[in-house]
């Protein structure tokens, strides 16, 4: 069936017809031309908020980013004029919803430069995507005595599923150590390989320290030994251009809500040949071709891995989010965030009693730090009083905290909509914290 024809004939046709392909037209258009942070900030309604009378300075972007008006508008448009279940009915709304959902898949495919759209599986987030690989690939192909290589930097979501698998299969986890700057020791990584090595899981960018890991080189080394690699891209996709074909990763996982999209949606990219060999993760509707009580035939990829009704609105919202980011340009985003990171790093370095945790030369927009004599939670509560939102705690990366001998850190994480003035607010807030605890 031709979903586009159905769209044109539908009551919402006028809305849909007027839209530029891939870009929501209701609300502000994404910024084009030179990077202008003030124009970008105007797209984010939440940034106008005041916290306890102070302007919000949102520096917890590594936990979750904020949503621009075009994405909010896209969600509203979907719910007001396009919603029905997908892949089910012949009626107009179902055809529109299906067509928009699949259009979102193509947008994500372009965003990460995947070869084929069927290599893009919608999941509920990064955690769900990694668990899918653990169940679909790990449980089928990892055997007793096999070894899985992970790194000290991993988020708990790229540790715990593999521990569960190792326990079930009697496999073994090997861990790549890091140096004092927070960089992976690649020589040690290479030494961990042997004939029992069957899988590698590594994060692209550290959520706790900001280190950008040399995943392309690590993947090439693993592939030379026939070992597939999963990259946790949750902290990379929001900050840099991702090209899964150039990386040559076997799996790449990331979340929508860190990418200016909604919560409850994420992506697993997988090479088609691998996805086809894998067993389904969840059983249910949509992931089958035929069901009898004697035998069920699974659907083709990506549908084999999308059991049940997916978060349709969230997927379409994420599609609008990557359109928004692409219109600004990932290179421009990276450049602006580097300016913010470098400025904040220089400012913090000049403050006695402030220690930056994670000093790799190649970092994304994450700044973890401790303040002498002040617990991170006290730092967080006092900064909040100034309207500055940072994350405090172990950042779901307890092995990293252990490695650096701290129970927790405070973490400022930047997005492209943050300004230099907000870095100043953070630094002023930290001076205030030191004054209270002087």
């Amino acid at each position: 069936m031709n979903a586009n024809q159905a769209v044109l004939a539908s009551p919402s046709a006028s809305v849909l017809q007027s839209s530029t392909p891939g870009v929501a037209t209701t609300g502000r258009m994404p910024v084009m031309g030179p990077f202008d942070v003030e124009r970008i900030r105007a797209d984010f309604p939440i940034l106008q908020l005041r916290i306890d009378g102070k302007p919000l300075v949102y520096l917890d972007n590594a936990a979750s980013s904020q949503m621009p008006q075009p994405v909010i508008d896209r969600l509203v448009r979907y719910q007001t004029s396009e919603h029905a279940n997908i892949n089910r009915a012949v009626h107009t709304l179902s055809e529109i919803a299906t067509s928009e959902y699949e259009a979102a898949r193509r947008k994500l495919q372009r965003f990460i430069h995947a070869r084929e759209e069927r290599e893009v599986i919608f999941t509920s987030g990064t955690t769900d995507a990694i668990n899918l690989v653990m169940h679909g690939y790990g449980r089928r192909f990892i055997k007793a005595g096999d070894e899985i290589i992970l790194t000290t930097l991993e988020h708990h979501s790229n540790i715990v599923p593999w521990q569960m698998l190792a326990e079930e299969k009697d496999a073994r986890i090997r861990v790549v150590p890091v140096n004092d700057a927070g960089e992976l020791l690649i020589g040690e990584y290479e030494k961990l390989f042997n004939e029992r090595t069957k899988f590698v899981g590594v994060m692209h960018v550290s959520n706790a320290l900001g280190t950008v890991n040399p995943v392309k080189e690590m993947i090439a080394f693993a592939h030379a030994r026939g070992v597939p690699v999963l990259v946790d891209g949750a902290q990379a996709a929001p900050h840099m251009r991702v090209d899964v074909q150039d990386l040559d990763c076997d799996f790449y996982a990331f979340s929508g809500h860190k990418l200016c999209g909604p919560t409850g949606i994420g992506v697993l990219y997988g090479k088609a040949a691998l996805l086809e060999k894998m067993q389904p993760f969840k059983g249910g509707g949509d992931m089958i071709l035929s069901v009898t009580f004697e035998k069920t035939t699974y659907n083709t990829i990506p549908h084999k891995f999308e059991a049940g009704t997916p978060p349709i609105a969230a997927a379409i919202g994420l599609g609008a989010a990557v359109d928004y980011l692409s219109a600004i340009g990932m290179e421009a985003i990276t450049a602006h965030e580097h300016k913010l990171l470098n400025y904040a790093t220089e400012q913090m370095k000049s403050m006695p009693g402030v220690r930056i945790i994670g000093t790799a030369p190649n970092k994304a927009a994450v700044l973890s730090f401790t303040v002498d004599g002040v617990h991170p939670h006290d730092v967080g509560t006092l900064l909040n009083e100034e309207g500055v939102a940072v994350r405090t705690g172990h950042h779901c990366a307890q092995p990293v905290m252990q490695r650096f001998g701290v129970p927790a850190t405070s973490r400022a994480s930047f997005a492209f909509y943050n300004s230099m003035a907000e870095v100043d607010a953070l630094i002023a807030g930290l001076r205030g914290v030191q004054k209270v605890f002087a």
Partner: protein
Amino acid sequence: MADYKALYQEVILDHNKKPRNYGTLEHASHHAVGHNPLCGDHISVALNLDRECIECIAFQGESCAICKASASMMTAAVKGKTRVDAETLIQEFLAMATGKLDLDSPNQIGRLAVFAGVRDLPTRVKCAILPWHTLHAAFNSVASTSTEAEQDPMHSPIGNA
């Protein structure tokens, strides 16, 4: 909205900087370690009961200012008290931290009222409670306790450790 800074009052900052009864006891009759797994903080409480009376008490640990000051002021408050009176104070402190205590009604809270502000900071309530929860565990010969899961004092009443 709450004035968050009110929480970091002089008395709390002072107890954080110069905690009272900080250290270990050689021959403790009761002791326990309390963990807050959400932030990695932990605090140990040791005491000597002499005929149901707290003869001496000490604490140690890694924690934020709220937790450390709470522990310091707790040890000062319960030293010399009977176990029963200390248990009453534990209940009152927990009630205060969770906004359930009427500070105008008769109570033993006294200077501990400086912690009343945590009731407006849900993420910090457990910081203030941890030492008291740990003291209760020590009284009941529970060697290790936690602010989470089954031992969460917010879900299972602290009196039923």
